[in-house]
């Protein structure tokens, strides 16, 4: 236990990276997810096809493989990026595919009458999407998005393989130094758990705020 306390600063730094990767990837994932969902629903054939392939490939391959491809594979194309950047890119692209499916489902679940009512008042398709459909779809998408977010938090541990010093790798480094396993792994488990719980409760309160019109 003393060892853990001595190295708390080091572990906290790992937790910071875990959090950073989660938040950054989630942010870009949301942007990608929304764009891909809109391409699939409203885009021309080419966009629909690209979006569909993207989702299918990402969902059909392991995240670990995607991370490795981004980090080691891009070098072959003369693109060298740092491990942290690779983590951002790989995980954003990964989570974007899952979020696009969430958004697509949520948008499709809004009754057609909403769109027709807005059109009938003279609103354009884009105005209708932005002001009528998306606000309602977002509310529907929040619970599954929360799950994705928490999944993301745990999935960041995968980027330890490309030497990003996030939480898991921090523990691994300490284990290698001190030859004791349990205290370090138990403490990072606790840290993951705390972060997940905090996220969950934040999302719950957002959800409550958005449900004021039910």
């Amino acid at each position: 236990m003393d060892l853990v306390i001595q190295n708390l600063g080091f572990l906290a730094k790992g937790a910071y990276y875990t959090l950073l990767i989660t938040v950054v990837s989630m942010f870009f994932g949301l942007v990608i997810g929304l764009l891909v969902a809109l391409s699939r629903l409203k885009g021309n054939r080419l966009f629909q096809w690209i979006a569909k392939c993207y989702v299918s490939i990402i969902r059909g391959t392991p995240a670990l493989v995607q991370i490795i491809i981004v980090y080691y594979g891009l070098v072959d194309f003369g693109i060298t990026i740092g491990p942290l950047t690779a983590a951002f890119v790989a995980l954003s692209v990964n989570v974007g595919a899952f979020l696009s499916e969430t958004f697509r489902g949520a948008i499709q679940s809004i009754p057609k009458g909403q769109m027709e009512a807005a059109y009938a008042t003279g609103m354009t398709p884009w105005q209708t999407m932005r002001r009528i459909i998306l606000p309602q779809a977002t509310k529907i998408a929040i619970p599954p998005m929360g799950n994705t977010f928490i999944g993301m938090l745990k999935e960041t541990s995968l980027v330890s393989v490309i030497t990003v010093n996030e939480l898991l790798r921090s523990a691994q480094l300490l284990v290698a130094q001190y030859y004791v396993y349990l205290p370090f792994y138990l403490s990072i488990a606790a840290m993951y758990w705390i972060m997940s719980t905090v996220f969950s409760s934040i999302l719950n309160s957002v959800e409550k705020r958005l449900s004021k019109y039910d």
Partner: protein
Amino acid sequence: MIKITNLSKAFGELEVLKDISLQIADQETVVILGPSGSGKSTLLRCLNGLEELTEGSIEVSGLVVDAKDSLKKRKKIIQKIRRNTGMVFQQYNLYPHKTALENVMEALIVVKKMDKREARLKSEEMLGKVGLLDRKDFYPSKLSGGQQQRVAIARALAMEPDVLFFDEPTSALDPELVGEVLRVMRTLAREGMTMIVVTHEMKFAQDVADRVIFMADGCIEEDTKSEVFFSQPSSERAKKFIKQITEHVHGE
């Protein structure tokens, strides 16, 4: 004025409207009657571009859309027509994430580019007109069906349309709530609003409509003054329809 010329509409193989021609003058209240599936909703929806025309043309507020026009041109004109028309739906279709007032304000701000204060005043006036000013801050889920439908009417009215389309505005309502919606519609008719109303409310058709259009199988079977339609319907189908409807009402 509204002018429909040789309008046909098909969904794939299914011909829903067959070569319809029709004119409606300003300030007229026209009720469209007909059995289920006869194409009443489709006809209304063609008039504000919620359905594409398969053949023929429509003219609304001096704007003409022809099935032969390019997609781009059709879209542009439809957009303009929608600014000059309003529609009230069977399921109200209020925006659930907006209050009654915000529902009415929405298009004033987004489409008419009114500033917020002006839009609010206008919307309050409209909600007052349908008797719901005291409910302006309620979300739709907190309003009865009749109240929701009246907000929907206020939302359409706020845009100062040349014509209002109603597609079975009272069909989703509990019987005791029908009256409050019809009352608003009667007032509008009296004030000279041009209205096309698809409904099964025979009393409304008899009392308020200037004219009844009876549709069957995608064709206009009858198009007469409302008194004439109910007292001396000429086609067999219209006779049968009137009989069924009145029996249905009495049977309840």
